[in-house]
């Protein structure tokens, strides 16, 4: 199968969906040349640096029969649009009694590891998960990026795509033929029997590397990528933990009120899954600090394969 990058897979999804549906259009500060070339400057607009306005405009256009695609660039810039995200986009379908649909894709990059310091190394998806009314995806591979983005564009709700900065240059297999990946379906990346590692985005790759390390030590790790944060494929996560009895959640966000915390609660509040637990649940997350710049500091703050493997050894030692 051909191989393309995570970033190119995302662009390919947009090209295909914008070609497929004339009600789509694209707004971002700086218009992406591959889209301008194909669809022209009317549907692909470079905008003033006014993310709040773009975020709100998407809502009005969506309510008028269009499927806007808004690229915030970094999640950092979504924060200047939070009124529109929190007070409007997440609630507007519900608040108006479901009378109109708001199909919107908001894209942004998340995560650190590229020495961009505190403002440009954030993973705040749980802040958005806390709102009712937004769907969100967090792909870990080029194939998932394309398939999930295509589903997100076709979805009739506001969907936020969190795309990992560290993974933008990752190259992987992407089918040339048409495909989509449904929202709300996790993927078991590696089967195992001793410990379940639920990992997000870049940490999926670190968890797979940790599983290799652990295998050499006789520990069988199952690695699961939820791929979609809302809706969460809770059944798949619980089924794995009922099989292994041990759970580690790996994410590059801090642990407080995080996706990892939510996954921990979703898995353990189910009585059958709780009874199957043989050890405490561990979150392998970033330290709860703003992300620092210097390599020695940043690398210390983020989780990695070694920290995941260490956590696995600890939970194995518990029972």
């Amino acid at each position: 199968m051909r191989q393309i990058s995570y970033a190119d897979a995302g662009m390919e999804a947009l090209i295909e969906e914008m070609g497929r549906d004339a009600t789509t259009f694209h707004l971002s500060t700086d218009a992406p040349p591959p889209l301008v070339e194909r669809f022209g400057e009317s549907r692909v607009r470079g905008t003033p640096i006014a993310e709040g306005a773009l975020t709100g405009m998407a809502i009005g256009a969506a309510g008028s029969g269009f499927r806007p695609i808004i690229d915030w660039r970094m999640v950092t810039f979504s924060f200047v649009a939070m009124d529109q995200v929190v007070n409007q986009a997440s609630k507007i379908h519900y608040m108006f009694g479901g009378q109109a649909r708001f199909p919107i894709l908001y894209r942004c990059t998340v995560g650190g590891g590229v020495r961009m310091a505190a403002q440009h190394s954030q993973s705040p998806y749980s802040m958005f998960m806390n709102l009712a009314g937004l769907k969100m995806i967090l792909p870990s591979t080029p194939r998932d990026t394309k398939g999930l983005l295509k589903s997100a564009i076709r979805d009739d709700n506001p969907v936020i795509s969190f795309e990992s900065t560290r993974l933008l240059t990752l190259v992987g297999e992407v089918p040339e033929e048409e495909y989509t990946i449904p929202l709300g379906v996790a993927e078991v990346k590696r089967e195992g029997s001793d410990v379940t590692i639920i990992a997000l985005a870049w940490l999926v790759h670190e968890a797979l590397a940790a599983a290799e390390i652990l295998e050499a030590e006789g520990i069988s790790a199952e690695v699961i990528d939820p791929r979609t944060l809302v809706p969460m494929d809770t059944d798949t996560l619980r089924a794995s933990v009922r099989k292994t009895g041990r759970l580690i959640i790996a994410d590059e966000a801090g642990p407080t009120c995080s996706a990892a915390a939510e996954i921990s609660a979703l898995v353990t509040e189910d009585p059958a899954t709780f009874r199957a637990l043989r050890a405490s649940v561990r979150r392998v997350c970033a330290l709860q600090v703003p992300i620092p710049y210097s390599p020695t500091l940043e690398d210390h703050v983020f989780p990695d394969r070694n920290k995941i493997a260490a956590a696995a050894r600890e939970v194995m030692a518990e029972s």
Partner: protein
Amino acid sequence: MDISPERQREMLRLMQTIRRFEERASADYVAGDIYGTVHCYIGEEAVAVGVCSALEQEDQIISTHRGHGHCIAKGADIDRMMAELYGRETGYCKGKGGSMHIADFSIGMLGANGIVAGGISIITGAGLAAQLEGKGRVAVSFFGDGASGAGPFHESLNIAAAWKLPMIYVCENNLWAVNTPASSSLSVPDVATRAAGYGIPGMVVDGNDIFAVHQATREAAARARAGEGPSLIECKTYRYRRHTERPTQVDIRPAEEIDAWLQKDPIERLVRHLKGQQGQLTDEEWERMDREILERVSLAVDYARASAFPDPARATDDVFAA
């Protein structure tokens, strides 16, 4: 002004409907039948009706927290409005929104909005949609003097001007943002002055003169439909009541100022005009019209009261579109 007497009487009917609807909503709120709060538009009726009477059915508007007038002026059904205020399942939002979130997308009313300036960029997106569609539709943003100091106003005007979106920005300057006088929070005496910064026409009109509002809107709509871009219309007006009907709501506005504006009432002004125009409205006709409106509002209350409250299980419906 080439507005037929019939249309002028219809404009009067809509203005009086807004006033009677809100008087009733306020009374029923005080009586405990309507929950949360109610923001009354009374005194500003000439703006909503003057603007909307100059629009086409397909044109779109967005409103504010003070939204009943815009709904009624755009043609919303007062039965479903009152039912929404009463929290009933037959309301516009199935009882999920209340006074501050009434919307009717089928008539181009994209919603009241509880965030000051929150709707300005949303309706600008509707303007972008109109431009992409190319069918000559216009989008109108209602907002207050307070909102003109907020970021979305400036971001939206800049984008609409740069892209020549078919937008009309209507500032309802009622001189007070809750209890903060516009004179102390605006950097210029007139909000319309700010249009110059975006290279678009800005005009100040007497917001209690429905014909002035109608004419300014008509001209702005013609420019928008011709691809000439947005306009900013500032309507100087006044709300007669406190910011909200909540009993705890303080009103520090001077009594003399309120009295002075009561003398400039937009409805009385239109009534006087019609009565003065070769008997286009007699005392009897006006009394009859008002009686009919009161009865109509009363029927809306009957409709609301006869409607069921939503089943609690419906609370989890419509979080997402299926």
